[in-house]
Structure formats: structure tokens, C-alpha cells
């Protein structure tokens, strides 16, 4: 190795260390932000090093510079603007978009090097195998992630999309992908085969993601994140660059574990999700019918206002419906109203309330709910027995006492013990079930009252009513 190569290798190794330590620091809320910054520093080091390398190399021509700089400028502009403007709850679709482009970039590297290097050098498995892996994983991630983005942002219907013969199509796509892979490796001089591999993988990514319900998407996004990591690692093999290999493999493995943990947190299995899952779809779509007839007590905004105004301790339990109705501002307003009147208000935050891990924390932090009021699962559960009114807003599964029993879709999931509080008010639009499609016996308990309304509208009415009683 030349002196510069030596330095470059060491810098890349150092930047890889930054990624690892960065990720490690992201495991705890206190150090998380610095962890991400450290990982960014590693990234900047790697980029500076490669710039020095290609300048020193001197091979790059004007066209190369133009393509590179144009691509970078446009890409950075687009990426930063997107990332700055995105509402926090839309992060999963953004991550998914970044997975798509990351996978796309990795696949492009594979194709480029294949077309560029291949004809001139002798054909070796050592080259063609990583190229193929890079291209098919990158291609699958690209199209799969775009569909996932679409589903999460509503451009593609969130409900599982299936059609007659979908299974067959899927099988054909997988076979075509594998066949193309074998052909590229077997006949590396025929460049049509790599195009075929790319095409088949794009179709496969599409077919894999379409039948998965929108609510399962965060898990799928995490899985595709791991895929992108692997594609990048194989791109590293193709261009023989160690920082790509290390960082890619790191993300590949870490992403896989993270995916398993996410699925576990919501009591699903990854295999189940990929296979289409049980309920699938958004709660709005799936949990339509209330199959068990239940006796519930309805209440009105006026009653709720009265109850709140005369309570000492109020616990707000936000769920997916709050996010869906975009009612976070109203919640904060109501809470302020009550705290100003000397009533203790806290929020009980379930780790998987909503549709992405940490959804509720992000949602409430965004409207400046004080950190001290957000109680995590264990803490909240200790507080319920002393709570006068639990106000459940668009939450369902995370409050379902059936989780304590066995034999249903949410068995064993830790829940918020809302049923232990002195009285409960639930705001939701109907009796339909939540994500897991399980009826919630909490709703028919004696001390529970249902206020059927859209979360935003209902809260506005409650605010008005409460004001009346507080005056």
C-alpha cells in the first residue's frame, strides 16, 4: 500500500469506529444526540478522505466532476430540505425514502462497476458475486422502500394490496431474480443479465411490500434499512472500499436486530408481517366490525368537562387515534387549562402507542408538553390507582386488559393499567377495534364512559365545556 492508501485505510477505520461508538451512544437518551453527531463526524472524515484520494489519483475528468458535484448539490439540497420540513410523525416514511435512495445508490455502484470494469478484466466470481448481491438487494430495497414510503404517506393505499395470483407473481419474481443472479455469475460478459437481475429485484421489492398493511410499515422500513446496509456492504466489496463494508455490515446486522425488537415490542413476528400479517392495515380500515356486542355507557363533552374540572389527578392516555386526528395541540391546550386550575395532569406513554416506536413522545414533545408530565409505562402504572380521571384519547390496544390473559393477539403485551384508575373516559369515533383487531373490555366496564367523536373535534368540545366549569 502506498503512504496515501495507508492513511486512507486508517482514516476509514477510524470513521468506522465513530459509527460504532455513535450507535452505542444512541442507546441512551442522554447521549443519543452526541452519538449521532459523532457518527456524522466519522462520515465527514470518510468523505474528506475520499476527496483527497480521488484528487491525488487524478483520474477523474471534467464530466466526472460535473456529475459528482451536480448530484451532490442537488441531493444535499433535497435531503436537507426534506429532513428539515418533515413533521416529526412522518419520520418513518422519510427514513424509508432514504432507504430507497441508499439502496439505489448501492445498486448503481454495482451496475456501474459491472459495466465499466467487467469487459476489461478477467471474469472472476470474486467480482461477480458481490455485484449480483449488491444489485439485487439494492434493487429490492429501492422499489420496496418507495412503496413503503407511499403507503406511510398515503400516496399508496395503506391497506394490504392483494390480487388474484399475487402469490404466483411473487414466486415468479423470486425465481427470475435468482435465475438472473445465476446467469450474471455464469455468463458475466453478457450485460443483459445484470439488467434482468435489476428488473426482477425491482419487481420483487414491489410485490413484497404491497401486501403489507400500513400499520406494519415501521417494521418493514426497519427491515429494509438493514437490507440497504447489506447492499452498501456488498458495494464495498465491489469497489474494494473497507469503510463501505464495515458501515454497511454494521447497519445490516444492527438493523436486523432492531427489526426483531420492534416487532417484539408490538407482539408481532417479522415472518408474520412479511407474510401479510393478521389484521393488517390501519385501525380505521381493519377493525371495522365490533363482533362482540357490548354494553357501554356513553357520555357527552359537557359531562367530561365537569368530571375533569372537579378532578385532582388526571391522566391523559394518548394513542394512535390522537396522531391520526392530529389533535396534539388540543390535548396540550386542555392540559394547560387544567394545570392552570391547579389540577395535576400527566400523560401515560406506552412505548408502542401509535404507529412507530416513540410516536407519542415525539408527538407530545413537538407541542412542548413538559418532559416531567410524560410518564413511561411503569411509572404511569404506579399512578393509576390514584388517578381520578383517565382520559384515553384514540388509544385502544395499549389499554386493553385482555393482554393480561392468554390466547389472543395481544396476550403478554405490557399494557397501561387504565382500568385501575377511579374513572375512565375514552374518546374514539366508534366501537371499532385498534391495530390488533381485539375488542377492548375496558370500554364496557362500569367506571368507563365512552365519548364517541373524532379526537380533535371531541377535545375542542371538551375544552369549551371545561372552561365553563372552571370559571
Amino acid at each position, binding site marked *: 500500500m502506498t503512504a496515501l492508501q495507508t492513511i486512507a485505510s486508517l482514516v476509514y477505520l477510524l470513521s468506522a469506529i465513530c*459509527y460504532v461508538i455513535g*450507535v*452505542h451512544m444512541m*442507546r441512551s437518551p442522554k447521549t*443519543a*444526540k452526541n452519538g*449521532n453527531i459523532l*457518527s*456524522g463526524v466519522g*462520515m465527514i472524515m*470518510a*468523505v474528506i478522505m475520499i476527496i483527497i484520494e480521488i484528487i491525488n489519483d487524478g483520474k*477523474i475528468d471534467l*464530466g466526472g466532476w460535473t*456529475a*459528482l458535484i451536480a*448530484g*451532490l448539490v442537488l*441531493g*444535499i439540497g433535497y*435531503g*436537507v430540505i426534506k429532513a*428539515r420540513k418533515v413533521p*416529526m410523525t412522518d*419520520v418513518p416514511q422519510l*427514513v424509508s425514502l432514504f*432507504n430507497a435512495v*441508499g439502496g439505489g445508490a448501492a445498486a448503481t455502484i454495482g451496475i*456501474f*462497476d459491472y*459495466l465499466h470494469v467487467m469487459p476489461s478484466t478477467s471474469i472472476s466470481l*470474486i467480482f461477480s458475486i458481490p455485484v449480483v448481491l449488491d444489485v439485487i438487494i439494492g434493487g429490492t430495497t429501492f422499489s420496496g422502500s418507495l412503496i413503503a414510503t407511499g403507503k406511510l404517506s398515503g400516496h399508496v393505499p395503506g391497506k394490504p394490496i392483494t390480487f388474484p395470483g399475487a402469490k404466483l407473481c411473487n414466486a415468479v419474481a423470486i425465481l427470475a431474480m435468482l435465475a438472473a443472479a445465476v446467469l450474471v455469475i455464469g455468463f458475466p460478459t453478457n450485460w443483459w443479465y445484470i439488467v434482468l437481475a435489476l428488473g426482477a429485484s425491482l419487481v420483487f421489492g414491489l410485490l413484497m411490500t404491497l401486501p403489507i398493511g400500513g400499520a406494519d410499515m415501521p417494521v418493514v422500513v*426497519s427491515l429494509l*434499512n438493514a437490507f440497504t*446496509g447489506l447492499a452498501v456492504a456488498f*458495494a464495498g466489496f465491489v469497489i474494494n472500499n473497507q*469503510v463501505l*463494508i464495515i458501515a*454497511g455490515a*454494521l*447497519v445490516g*446486522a*444492527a438493523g436486523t*436486530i*432492531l427489526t426483531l*425488537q420492534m416487532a417484539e415490542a408490538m407482539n408481532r413476528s417479522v415472518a408474520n408481517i412479511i407474510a401479510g400479517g393478521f389484521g393488517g392495515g390501519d385501525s380505521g380500515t381493519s377493525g371495522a366490525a365490533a363482533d362482540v356486542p357490548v354494553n357501554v355507557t356513553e357520555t357527552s363533552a359537557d359531562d367530561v368537562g365537569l368530571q375533569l374540572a372537579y378532578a385532582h389527578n388526571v391522566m391523559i392516555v394518548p394513542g394512535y387515534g390522537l396522531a391520526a386526528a392530529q389533535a396534539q*395541540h388540543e*390535548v396540550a391546550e*386542555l*392540559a*394547560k387549562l387544567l*394545570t392552570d386550575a391547579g389540577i395535576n395532569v400527566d400523560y401515560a406513554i406506552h*412505548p408502542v402507542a401509535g404507529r412507530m*416506536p416513540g*410516536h407519542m*413522545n415525539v408527538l407530545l414533545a413537538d*407541542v*412542548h408538553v413538559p*418532559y*416531567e408530565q410524560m410518564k413511561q409505562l411503569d411509572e404511569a402504572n404506579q399512578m393509576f390507582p390514584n388517578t381520578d380521571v383517565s382520559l384515553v384519547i384514540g388509544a385502544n390496544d395499549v389499554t386493553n386488559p385482555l393482554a393480561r390473559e392468554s390466547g389472543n393477539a395481544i396476550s403478554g403485551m405490557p399494557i397501561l393499567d387504565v382500568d385501575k384508575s377511579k374513572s375512565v373516559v375514552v374518546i374514539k369515533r366508534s366501537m371499532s377495534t385498534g391495530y390488533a383487531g381485539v375488542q377492548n373490555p375496558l370500554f364496557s366496564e362500569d367506571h368507563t364512559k365512552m365519548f364517541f367523536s373524532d379526537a380533535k373535534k371531541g377535545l375542542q368540545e371538551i375544552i369549551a365545556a371545561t372552561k365553563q366549569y372552571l370559571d
Partner: protein
Amino acid sequence: MSQQLYTNLAIFVLSLLVGFEVMSKIPATLQTPMMSGANAIHGVVVVGAFVIAAEADNIWFYLLAFLCAFFAAVNVSGGYTVTDRMLGMFTKPKASSSNKNAGGDKQ
């Protein structure tokens, strides 16, 4: 097998092991930021974009290099920016920030 391939293979395997180990027991609330943070890291593919841009020598290759640079730049710049923003929400808000929003002010 060349020494180089062995190097690549060994670091690939070891990096996988690091990845598996570093990710044990993430609290659920940090899973989304963690996913986003990992997402930013695979933006390292931008290094590859430089490598191929340096090798491009005709219009098609320029195009591929452009595409790759664009894709990778979106990933890396957006990834770090959004992760940073999101992690900002997980740290205790400072007493200073003004509350334009409705309620829930500091007590």
C-alpha cells in the same frame, strides 16, 4: 483467495458481529431514532459515489455517477439531519424555548 478478499471478508464478518451486539435491548421509545441513525450511516455509500465518478468516462457513466451521487447525498444529508432533529425531542426541553403552541407550558 487473495489477502485483500480475506481482509474484506474478515472485516465484514466482524462488523456484522459488532452490529448484532451493539443493538441489544434498545428501549422502544428510542427505536425510531435508532433506525434513523442507522439509516444515516448507510449514507456512507456516498464514498462509493466519489469512487465511481472518478472512473466515469462517457456520458452513460456520467449519468450513473450523477444518479449515484444524488441518491447517496439525499441519504446521508437527510439521514443525519432528521436524526438530529428527532433526537432533539428526546432530550429535556430547555426552559428557554418560547411556546408558540397552545398549552402544556412548563409548570
